[in-house]
């Protein structure tokens, strides 16, 4: 009698622990949204990806439509080659363009995909070349400083611009 009582209590303890783990996995880590949706991959070339990491969200009109799968460096044309896993239920025109965007002023970066106008849709394995790089603050500041300096020395401002 006493033995079986203890069994029940230990069982309850294990159950509570497992329930806590399940709660953490589902509610806080969002296990369900991870990878159970079918995806197709396309690659994109970026001049500069900024702080992009694998698993970064890809959003269209603010809705998450996929995740960045992997990022490699292509030493043929010195660009970043980013593999994107887009959800199969969404299709985009072939001439869609990509941007590395930031949510808010200090928020995390994500990839924005903007639909093009072409009739054909992106197929698995396609490459997107119409991309816009991440905004690098240092470049912006140095461009701004150069143009300011150019104005100051009374030179035509266009000569120093890249």
């Amino acid at each position, binding site marked *: 009698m006493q033995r079986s009582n203890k069994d029940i*209590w230990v069982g*309850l*303890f294990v159950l509570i622990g497992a329930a*806590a783990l399940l709660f953490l996995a589902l509610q*806080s880590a969002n296990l369900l949204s991870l990878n159970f949706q079918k995806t197709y991959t396309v690659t994109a070339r970026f001049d500069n990806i900024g702080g992009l990491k694998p*698993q970064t969200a890809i959003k269209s009109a603010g809705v998450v439509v996929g995740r960045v799968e992997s990022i490699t460096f292509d030493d043929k044309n010195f660009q970043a080659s980013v593999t994107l896993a887009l959800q199969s239920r969404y299709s985009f025109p072939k001439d869609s363009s990509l941007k590395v965007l930031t949510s808010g002023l200090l928020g995390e970066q994500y990839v924005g995909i903007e639909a093009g106008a072409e009739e054909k849709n992106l197929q698995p394995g396609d490459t997107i070349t119409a991309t816009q790089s991440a905004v690098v603050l240092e470049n912006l500041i140095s461009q701004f400083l150069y143009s300011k300096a150019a104005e100051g020395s009374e030179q035509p401002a266009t000569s120093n611009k890249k």
Partner: protein
Amino acid sequence: MSFWNPADVGFAVRGKLADLGRGARLFARLVGDVRGLRRFSLVRDQVHFLGNYSLAIIAVSGLFVGFVMGLQYFYGLQRYGASESVGVLISLSLLREFGPVITALLFAGRAGTSLTAEIGLMKAGEQLSAMEMMAVDPVRRVLSPRFWGGVIAMPLLSAVFCAAGILGGWVVCVPLLGIDAGAFWGQMQNGTDVFRDLGNGVIKSIVFGFTVTFIALLQGYEAQPTPEGVSRATTRTVVVASLAVLALDFLLTAMMFSI
């Protein structure tokens, strides 16, 4: 007798080395005794004793840690207008650090001490020697079930702690401070990864389960068989286990979360 007498220094160093060696041998025997898990009723009794009885203190501490974290993160983040991120901060700090570490510290105080005192008194009362006389191996009969019981209980307790903490953070942030519930959970779910954060936290708590339970058993097993010796061993359990957990936590964090 001078402290710097070479013979004394040598004696002390040899003593420490011998302690370390005995400890390592005991650890190897306990870890190697996976078959001890087959004596299920013994292990179950220990899970009951170490786990069920620690559940209340762990859950309540988790809840209060969650409350406090909710308040502090909210006040800190409000300056930057980022108070919605409080959810992701709570979940990351709980899953990665506070959950496993505080659980291990509480477990050392709540369950480790009782293990040490129990084993130490068994030794002082010569019960362990009596077992050996009857050709029963006290390591396998007494220590091993307690060891595996602690190793099983720790990750579950840590998960309960994290869950209680997140609920506590939710209670403070959403109903009391008025953060939007969708932002709270949404940011948390975006920023927390199942394997990277939750998985590593569980690995940490398993490692701490091994550490704390083993240190408690070792201190009891090596205690001087006198009332004073048992009391000292109990104190040492808390001190050594806490230090070991904190140091190991630093190492594990450096290994797991380095980019």
